[in-house]
């Protein structure tokens, strides 16, 4: 379990948190790997996992009415993938598809929520970190709405 503890502690979501906090997450975690093209998240399906990406990239996609998917974001190594496990209805909102061979730590969402409920100090630390990621992604999304490059989507 030593290696798993290091993998989690080295991810940006858990970096700098006390060992005891990391240790609680270790009990819910396992190593996973995906081939390019693998659908890691499927829109509408139950969301039960927090992924800490170690290597490879994942594209977040949304299905257009035409059926042709649109890539709306790329998540890279040392980033966090998936937070729909955190709040009801616990369903993925987007598809997540591996672009490269992906290696990740998969942390069981139900397990993590139970530990957060039982240990508010752990729960608060976890939520603070996840809020940071959410804020960063929200700000990036807002910036993207600003027509940053002088083109509108209609161009």
């Amino acid at each position, binding site marked *: 379990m030593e290696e798993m503890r290091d993998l989690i502690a080295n991810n940006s979501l858990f970096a700098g948190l006390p060992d005891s906090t990391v240790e609680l997450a270790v009990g819910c975690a396992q190593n996973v790997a995906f081939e390019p093209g693998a659908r890691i998240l499927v829109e509408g399906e139950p969301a039960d996992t927090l992924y800490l990406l170690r290597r490879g990239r994942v594209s977040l996609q949304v299905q257009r009415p035409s059926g042709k998917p649109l890539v709306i974001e790329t998540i890279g190594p040392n980033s966090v993938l998936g937070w729909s496990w955190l709040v009801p209805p616990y369903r993925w909102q987007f598809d997540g*598809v591996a672009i490269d061979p992906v290696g990740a730590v998969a942390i069981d969402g139900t397990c993590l929520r139970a530990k957060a409920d039982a240990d508010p100090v752990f729960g608060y630390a976890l939520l603070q970190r996840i809020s940071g990621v959410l804020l960063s992604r929200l700000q990036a999304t807002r910036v993207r709405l600003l027509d940053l490059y002088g*083109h509108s989507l209609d161009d």
Partner: protein
Amino acid sequence: MPGPFVPSPYRVVDRRTETSDVTTLWLEPVDQPIAPFRAGQFNMLTAFGIGEVAISISSAPGAPGAIEHTVRDVGAVSHALASSEVGTVVGVRGPFGTDWGLESLEGVDVMVVVGGIGLAPLRGAMRYLAENPSPGRKVALRVGARLPDQIVFPEEMERWGQMGVDVEVTVDVADTGWTGNVGVVTQILKELPFDGAGAVALVCGPEIMMRFSARSLIDLGVKPENIRVSLERNMQCGIALCGHCQLGPYLLCRDGPVVPYAPLAAELITEIER
């Protein structure tokens, strides 16, 4: 010697469509050439019978052959220029304005950040930096565009990457055929491949993009006074007489387009965006 308002005739000797609304023109003098230029400067190009417009020079200074200008088709004059066929004669006045200060970048790490067609005014500087390595200097390029088909000079970026430049490109949205990064340009400015404290950043794009990029660079340790941005206004005379290009204390045709981000440009850009 013609006066400063008399354009020199140049012939379009080649042209290339870069994107749906961006075209690069190769211009050679019909008679006497204009004075040598520095990377970052601009020329006033005339579409005879239609008008004159400021266009950045997109080739490298001192390079042999025709001068390159990359034109985005957004108005009557730029449309006429962008539509010019090989053989068309256009007018050229210049070069005007300030430059990227390449001579100050020996041995200094350089982060170049561009958005949209912003790579055009930096293309000459990028060519110079890629082709003239300096001991101890690392060069990185971060490019943001709305869509993959709005990225300009993709083959050249690939070549710079092969020459040792750390290149990353991101787009706002894409089809699944795009295997590059998707996200706003500030998302690929979360870390620098070198120490920001001693680095110089060259930033060009719409002002809102430059503002957000400069903030990210400062967060990464780049000193605000080491960030250079390219500002444009309604350049007309090119020699700081008419005042159309005034921005605060600057007459940008003379004092710009390249200015330090701090302290003045940062305030001016923020005021404009309010």
